[in-house]
């Protein structure tokens, strides 16, 4: 089955993701698609029917805890804090389901998922790293990846198993109350905790295939080539792999995600990414409703950190360098 988590504003993307899963899931084409709503369902227009099952967070988290979490987190942190809970609940609600794919609403499936189901025959948890080879000069650098975690929490797959249950319990216990983005404290959403997963959970596997989870952050190390009905991805090791899953985070909305100031990927109109993005935009637009666009998220009352552009970004960046210099520069004692 497929699970995603989103706000009302992101629903069109979640629907597009659901459509792509339906198309490519193969043997699981009739499997459930569940949308965890980290938002209030009240904003949906009267008579609105969702093509996929919606599960509002209020059905999972008691009202007093919901209020506490909402008050302490930004909307992004709030959604992250609820993720393990939603995954566990999906397994509980659908007892016949064995394999569960979690995907961020920015994702789209682009190739039959046979290899994914196949990998889950021998693994309980699948993770994908942001990048699979050393980064060239540019922003962000490898140190920043250490701050956010090396495995992306936007695409995960699980097989029903006692190991998966243990992982979800462990993750939930940590993430519910510690989903802050606070690099100095070693925290970054639900994501940085995944650093422990390949060690703690022996049947977890890290998938380094270039066609799995291609995105803004790893396109500089990969090359896309169009085929008749799919795309091929060339990875750092030269291997060719069909493009299975693409994450449009930071491409559809440049202010979203951790790569808002990346400067490695430069898009041209005819680049494969532009082609993919244009098709994705169409897929999302067909689900758009005006009310969704203007709706602010109901949970996560802390403000998201601002994304600055142009001269403001340049000024703040250099001012921070000066502040850091004043903080650390050696000054001899005046006698």
């Amino acid at each position, binding site marked *: 089955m497929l699970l995603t988590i989103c706000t009302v504003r992101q629903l069109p993307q979640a629907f597009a993701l659901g459509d792509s899963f339906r198309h490519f899931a193969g043997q699981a084409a009739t499997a459930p698609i569940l949308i965890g709503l980290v938002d209030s369902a009240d904003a949906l227009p009267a008579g609105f029917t969702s093509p996929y099952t919606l599960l509002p967070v209020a059905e999972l988290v008691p009202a007093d805890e919901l209020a506490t979490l909402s008050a302490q987190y930004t909307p992004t942190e709030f959604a992250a804090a609820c993720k393990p809970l939603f995954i566990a609940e999906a397994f509980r609600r659908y007892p016949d389901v064995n394999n569960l794919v979690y995907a961020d609403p920015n994702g789209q499936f682009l190739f039959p998922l046979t290899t994914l189901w196949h990998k889950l025959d021998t693994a309980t948890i699948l993770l994908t790293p942001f990048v699979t080879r050393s980064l060239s000069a540019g922003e962000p650098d490898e140190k920043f990846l250490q701050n956010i975690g090396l495995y992306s929490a936007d695409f995960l797959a699980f097989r029903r198993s006692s190991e998966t249950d243990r992982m979800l319990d462990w993750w939930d216990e*940590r993430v519910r109350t510690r989903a802050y983005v606070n690099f100095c404290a070693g925290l970054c959403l639900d994501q940085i905790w995944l650093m422990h997963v390949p060690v703690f959970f022996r049947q977890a596997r890290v998938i380094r295939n270039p066609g799995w989870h291609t995105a803004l952050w790893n396109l500089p190390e990969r090359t896309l080539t169009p085929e008749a009905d799919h795309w091929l991805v060339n990875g750092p090791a030269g291997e060719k792999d069909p493009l299975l899953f693409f994450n449009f985070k930071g491409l559809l909305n440049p202010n979203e995600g951790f790569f808002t100031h990346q400067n490695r990927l430069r898009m041209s109109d005819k680049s494969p990414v532009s082609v993919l993005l244009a098709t994705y935009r169409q897929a999302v637009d067909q689900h758009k409703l005006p009310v969704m666009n203007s709706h602010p998220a109901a949970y996560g009352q802390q403000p998201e950190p601002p994304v600055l552009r142009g001269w403001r970004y340049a000024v*703040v960046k250099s001012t921070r360098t000066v502040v850091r210099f004043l903080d650390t520069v*050696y000054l001899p004692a005046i006698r």
Partner: protein
Amino acid sequence: MTIAFTICSINYLAQARTLGNSLRQTNPDYTYIIGLVDRLDQATLPPDLLPDYPIIEIDKINIPDFPAMCDRYDITELNTAVKPFFIDYFYTNYPALEQIIYFDPDIIVFQPLHKLNQDLRQYSMVLTPHECFPTSDWERPNDLHHLNTGIFNLGFIGLRNDDTARQFVNWWKQRLIYECRIDLCNGLFVDQLWVNFAPVYHDNVLVEHHPGYNVAYWNIHERTLSEDADGQWWVTSLTDEPDQPLQFFHYSGYDPYKPDAISKYQTRYTFGERMDTKPLFELYRTRLLANHNDRYRQYPCVYVKPPNVLRYKRVRKVLKSPLTKLIAFLERQ
């Protein structure tokens, strides 16, 4: 040929000798070398303090612009930054070299490391995670601490002499020239945090779960120790697997002059709660003292600099004030 090596300054030579003696006893076919972040010509050690092991001083392995590195780093950063430079030196200068094993000086090896040597015939690198099972409380250290200091403990690394390992070591060297600092907010923790990338960038890395490797304060929540009638040490882990022989114990943060504390870096256990580990620490204390710890610790390292005192905090604050206001203003827009 297998090289086992450690890195330390003269004040830690009792530890390095204790490690060397344990290797001589358990793995006599290894060539054990001490990488010294210090200068013997300036210390003039009496003959009985000169270890019976080859010593290679840090200024002799051709680290590019080494004086500048000394200026940049404090003693902890410097001692850790030189690790891949030593590894590269061994790769270059010992043509028969097949395997390199690094141990922190505060380790004792208890067994012939057959599994490790066997694994290094197959894998390019062997790494030990701090913990193989989560901690169940928030005492120090817990799952969170390892997130910004590193999943793997770099008191140990095993490397084969192959292209993958050399490629990794070159990458690691490049990072450590300038970025072997402790700056958690910016994703830096000496040489150790960088090694998180090893299994992400390379296929052929073994993450070792054997409970007898690198036993230390950070993983005794998942391991208990016992000694049998023959004096052999065994480790019981949380898995259903049978007990495994203790391979090597890491006495990180243990002070033989404060023998009642397991480690200055941990708050989880007292010896009263972990009597199983107590004889291992007593053994270590006895060996350190027999290896002249009292005398070695008197030698200051030539590379130690006076601590960087941050003077004029008020002046700095006044100068920064308009700048932080400007940042806040621009971020509000």
